[in-house]
């Protein structure tokens, strides 16, 4: 079996394992290590690692878990993600976590933080209020204070308060992680047939629940292996998939889009792993550096306020240009406020710029892909016939 296949099979195994065996094994091999879960979209993983803890991304159960208890917590008009997160917890699959962080992604995740406080009173739970004000002296200082509080609190949980050197080492490590993710995205955009999104996604999903060092090894090896036995080049339309930053689409949907005739050349999948778009400084005050990086150099996403009045209007055209894409697929989870409220602004900007768009909704447990195949296939055909952006 080729290296590429070995790596992807490993990633698939990690992705499908809803008992988080890889994370549990890491903990059992390192008795002093504790695990911190975090929900989408962004949590400062550097702080977690510097506190001698393992960051574990909690993205629900996808289409692999039957919801038995989770539905009792939510009305039909709430998205699917929190149901499966509760299902994972209530079935003891998250019992290895010592703390859980709930970033300010939306009101559902916000309220889930309080539900966790009630349901698991012995666990450390923190709501992470990400800064929306982009003035370093106001929003930056706020986020810096939040990070310092988090450092103190995680230190109490782990028994190891992160020192500045710990933080610098973690920043260095995550600069490497972000670099390799950027390289993967760059490589996919350049030659998408060599790096299908199905594989890239599996690798990145695995990276959310294993130690960052292990992910780095696998990702570097994969980058080297993509020329070994890549699938043949195919003439397909190049698309960006927008709106998939929180509740993740099932793997089958990602496969369907590409098999229907589209190459995904940019996306919002797991965007928290590359939220900081530049390397964080390792010299000087590491907490201030992390705060500054977020304020000045974070991805534009629906979960953060857009200070530029033209920002929403122009964002899609910028992304399409950067990715040399032909069109945009707006794929939002049902009942997802951030993605669905943003969509009219983003879509009208894209259409004004002459970019072909389609839109659909999914849930993490969507099991039928025929309609998506038809939509994506027709979209690709129309781009071929009448041209893209």
């Amino acid at each position: 079996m080729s290296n590429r296949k070995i790596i992807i099979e490993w990633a698939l195994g990690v992705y499908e394992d809803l008992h988080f065996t890889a994370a549990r094994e890491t903990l059992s091999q390192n008795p002093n290590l504790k695990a911190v879960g975090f929900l989408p979209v962004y949590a400062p993983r550097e702080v977690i690692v510097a506190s001698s803890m393992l960051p574990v991304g909690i993205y629900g159960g996808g289409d692999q878990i039957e919801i038995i208890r989770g539905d009792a917590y939510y009305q039909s008009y709430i998205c699917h993600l929190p149901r499966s997160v509760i299902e994972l917890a209530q079935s003891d699959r998250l019992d290895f976590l010592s703390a859980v962080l709930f970033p300010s992604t939306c009101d559902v995740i916000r309220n889930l933080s309080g539900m966790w406080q009630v349901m698991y009173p012995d666990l450390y739970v923190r709501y992470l209020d990400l800064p929306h004000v982009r003035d370093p002296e106001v929003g930056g200082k706020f986020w810096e204070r939040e990070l310092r509080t988090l450092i103190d609190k995680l230190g109490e949980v782990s028994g190891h308060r992160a020192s500045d050197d710990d933080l610098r080492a973690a920043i260095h490590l995550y600069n490497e992680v972000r670099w390799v993710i950027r390289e993967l995205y760059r490589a996919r955009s350049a030659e998408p047939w060599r790096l299908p999104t199905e594989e890239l996604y599996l690798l990145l999903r695995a990276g959310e629940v294993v130690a960052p060092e292990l992910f780095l090894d696998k990702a570097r090896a994969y980058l080297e292996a993509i020329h070994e036995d890549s699938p043949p080049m195919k003439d397909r339309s190049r698309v960006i998939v927008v709106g998939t930053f929180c509740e993740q689409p099932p793997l089958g949907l990602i496969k369907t889009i590409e098999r229907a005739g589209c190459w995904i050349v940019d996306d919002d999948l797991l965007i928290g792993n590359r939220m900081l778009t530049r390397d964080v400084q390792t010299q000087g005050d590491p907490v201030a550096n992390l705060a500054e990086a977020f304020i000045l150099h974070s991805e534009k996403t629906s979960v953060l306020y857009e200070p530029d009045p033209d920002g929403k209007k122009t964002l899609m055209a910028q992304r399409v240009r950067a990715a040399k894409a032909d069109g945009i697929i707006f794929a939002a989870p049902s009942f997802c406020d951030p993605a669905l409220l943003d969509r009219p602004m983003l879509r009208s900007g894209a259409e004004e710029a002459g970019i072909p768009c389609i839109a659909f909704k999914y849930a993490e447990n969507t099991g039928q892909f025929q309609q998506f195949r038809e939509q994506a296939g027709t979209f690709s055909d129309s781009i071929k016939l009448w041209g893209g952006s």
Partner: protein
Amino acid sequence: MATDSADSVVQKDRSMVLQKNMIAEHFKRLERAPESGEPVVYTFVPGNLTELIRSFDALPLLPEINALQSGMRGKSKDYIAEAERAGHSEDVCTYVKCDIGMLKSGNIGPTGTKLPKPDLLLLSYTGCYTFMKWFELLREEYDCPTVFLQIPYQGDGELEPEHRKYIVDQIEADLIPAMEKISGKKYDEDKLKHHLGLAAEAEDDLVAVLHSAKNRPSPIDSYFGGVYYVGPIFSAFRGTEEGVEYYRELRKEVEARVAAGLGPVTPDGSLDEQDYRLVVEGPPNWTSFREFWRMFSEEKAVVVASTYTKVGGTYDLGFRHDPSDPLGTMADYCGGCYTNLNMPSRIDMLVNYIKDYSADGFVINSVKSCNSFSAGQLMMLREVEKRTGVPGAFIESDLVDPRYFSAANIKNRLESYLQMIDARRQRTAS
């Protein structure tokens, strides 16, 4: 919050007339604003900084109020359809779609007057994610500045000192300069203090009104009537002389009802005989408001406390605007609004209401539109039941989308619930 529908109530107290006139005059001023030059500031109810806006002689305008009024006046259905035709998802907040639809249909406000364009969009980001998108959407329609005021969530059950500082920093660095620019006036701290003092005065009277529901019979309905009572203080009139007068008058009327042993005024008259004392969580449905209220009043059920009437401030928990610390007190106010409280605090509040107001039960009205309220309410139901031993009822509707109001369903659930309370009483008595 209902602010101008005093017409819909059978009996008119002086406070109702006052409120109606205040609202009418406010919307007339808003209509004249392009000519009079009074700056108009769009902002939200939770975390509204009315005293600061007024201190610059500017006029606040609150899109949620317009949306709920459109719902009460039967216009929201068409507005929502208009927004959905323009690409807004059926899954998202109907307040937003109603507002966008109203804008696209000529921007005629609740009193039939044309609403002015904003000079400033003051996005007080308090307790609701959707607010952020709402003003990003409105910003595309108006050529005016936007100030984003981030109010940190009370994730650990309190407004932490660094969160308070963050709010004050933003007011100083962003909001005050923006207000100075649109009004052409310098920030006047003494004037702000004056408005804050007036706010505290009205808040005292409002709390006395809310606490009056501890009496038997309760002289007020704290939910259906409550939304009228909080109207002025949650919208444009906190910190104004008119607001003070309104609440002074309201308190007098309520105290007179207590003395006379009377219940609240409902769509069908005075509810003096009260068989059920209930606490309600969640916003009301506005499109069938009277019908919804009647389902309770016909069963002789009175609401003695509600959480929705705290979205614009938790005065009954002790908060008062403090003129001696003008910016700090505004930060405290914003941080303490109901939807900015974490789930354990919200559960505590319901538990305390049930005990303090000697309630027989509690009802959660879960609205499809509002994840800030609705996500987690099923767990709240179980927790409150567990801690109080009082069973709860769970009903579902929407804010302003009439498609999601199923009268028969809600009535059935409510009646069954009240029968359950009766059965418990009989068991306890025997």
